[in-house]
């Protein structure tokens, strides 16, 4: 029984990673209707940025994390300006090719600049353990869960109760109507990517110490993010987040009771099932990101 509980806790940790990453994707898909295949590689870029600040420059954890988030926000704005703005009004095929090209450039750019050896960024919280019976959990993982919770609370407040958040939701529901209501689409566009990239930066700062940093880390994540997004309702943040946690738990429990060979298959099996049975997502049909 305790093993089951431990697997649930494992699932929540990886679910937090998925949730933070997918939210960014849900925002860009929901608000701008743009499909970004370099999302996972931005996560990889953020991991290397965090490694640079935390391990290479040896800045302590909190400032390194903040620097990573801020710099990733900048990367998001830059990305919007250079890649997305040209293709946001074009067809999905063009968007696919443009963002896939960006992904390849980022991926191979990192390999050329930094080399392909993997790096690790453990924090002191990694080895400080909390033990309850036979279950042990590192403080870093507790931090991941806590900060993710706070981040989503903040996102909720932002989207529901602030002017800009409401503007974002308006654009996601009906772009033309929002424009005629006086909302600055270009500004919202920049802000969406800034927020999306900042969330990725946050997930990097939280999660990279637990794993390791290597160039291929983004590839499967992009695919899984899209799978989760499909399950939760394409372009909906409040569908994507629970779907992400559900997937994390399913993967953990499935690995525990079936086999680790099937871990990656869960996300895609769920996606296929949802597309067959309830293509609008498992949380029902609703317009807009939140």
């Amino acid at each position: 029984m305790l093993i089951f509980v431990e697997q649930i806790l494992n699932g929540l940790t990886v679910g937090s990673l998925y949730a933070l990453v997918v939210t960014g994707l849900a925002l860009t898909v929901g608000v701008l209707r743009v499909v970004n295949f370099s999302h996972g590689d931005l996560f990889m870029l953020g991991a290397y940025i965090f490694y640079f600040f935390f391990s290479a420059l040896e800045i302590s954890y909190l400032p390194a994390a903040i620097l990573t988030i801020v710099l990733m926000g900048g990367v998001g704005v830059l990305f919007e300006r250079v890649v997305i703005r040209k293709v946001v009004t074009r067809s999905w095929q063009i968007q696919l090719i443009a963002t896939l090209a960006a992904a390849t450039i980022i991926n191979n750019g990192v390999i050329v600049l930094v080399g392909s050896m993997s790096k690790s960024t453990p924090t002191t919280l990694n080895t400080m353990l909390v033990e309850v019976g036979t279950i042990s959990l590192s403080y870093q993982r507790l931090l991941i869960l806590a900060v993710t919770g706070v981040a989503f609370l903040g996102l909720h407040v932002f989207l529901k109760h602030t002017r800009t958040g409401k503007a974002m939701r308006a654009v996601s529901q009906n772009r033309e109507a929002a424009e005629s209501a006086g909302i600055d689409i270009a500004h919202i566009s920049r802000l969406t990517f800034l927020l999306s990239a900042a969330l990725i930066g946050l997930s990097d700062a939280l999660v990279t110490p637990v794993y390791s940093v290597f160039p291929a880390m983004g590839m499967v994540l992009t695919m899984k993010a899209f799978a989760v997004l499909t399950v939760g309702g394409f372009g909906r943040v409040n569908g994507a987040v629970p779907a992400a946690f559900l997937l994390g738990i399913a993967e953990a429990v499935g690995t525990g009771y079936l086999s680790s060979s099937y871990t990656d298959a869960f996300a895609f099996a769920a996606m296929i099932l949802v597309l067959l049975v309830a293509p609008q997502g498992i949380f029902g049909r609703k317009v807009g990101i939140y």
Partner: protein
Amino acid sequence: MLARVSRPSIRLLLTLAVIAWSASSATAGQPPTAKTPAGEPIRIGVSLIQSGANTALGQDFNEGTTMAVEEINARGGVLGRPLRLYNVDDASDPATAINAVGKLIDVDKVSAIIGPSSSGVVLAVMPIVERSTVPMLVTGATNSKITEQAGVGGNKWVFRLNIDDSVMATALSDVVSKEVKSAVIVAANNDYGRGAASFFQKRLIQNGTKVTSIEYYTNGQADYRPMLTKIKGDKPEGMIVVADAPDAAPMAMQATELGLSNLKVYGRGTVVTPEFLRLTKDQKIWNGAKEANRWAPAGSELEQRYRARWAREPRVLAVLPYYGIVVLAEAIKLAGSDDRTAVRDALAKVNLNIPEIGPVKFDANHQAHHDMFITQWDNGTVKTVSRQPTQ
């Protein structure tokens, strides 16, 4: 857009580009050598992992082959001609490798190929080199099928320098069986991992040791906790890890975090290597773990030269390709030419004794039988527990 830029500017840009390109190709490549041999270069193709999930292995491979070629060329080359490497990216993926090796054969017109590193990729590429009659020397992949399919009665163009898992996994299983009564096997979900796992399982059961389960993980998978939690529930005494350092290190850190420190660890990859310690940053993690490998850094002279060239310690996945080039050079010398068939015939006749790894002579299945090393982590130092011949 081009119409708006004036013609003289384009011409200027192109001229600058051509100058920059010729300047870079003139200075790129090897450091200055003492005696650069003249003559038409002898072309050797290298299939490297430069993208995808295992790029760290490609960097090692490249360093090994590059250093070997530099040293050989500094001593006058082979047959008075310099060796020249042609690198391609196989991405550790069979489909990509088939195209990459095709380029080496048809476009670069190499005399011999060294690599690929991944077992699954080698198996995919073997028919190609047979069809195109190009000799290929494998220096890292450990699936036993490669030898089973090569040499007499099979593919006569493929040779393997490194010993494979039919030898290493079996030998390590005997060590495991003497020390624990039950074990779990954790392996990469590819030909390398699955091949080794099957040998471990067979031998362990033969020895009467209980195998609690075989867990496969994906290369580059970041989270091992669910798998490790399951292992924790099964309570084996030992854990066999068929993994390279970039995967083994996060696995080890997460295992320690989960409280799995009483498990005896046995590696069959690159677990007991400085690279592993560099990633875990804690010598207490998996201290005492043993590993069966194809080479160990036993205070060698190669290590000093490698450090001088690349500013870090040599790794087994760099050392094997290094000796691969040495063996290829010897074959070309014996053949007296760089003709593909002559080189292939000469490889079958190579009979070297390399102090670092042992005897190199290819048997009827084109497999060499150099020594096997068992290493162990001893508080941050790699200790060589034993070195045994495998003939």
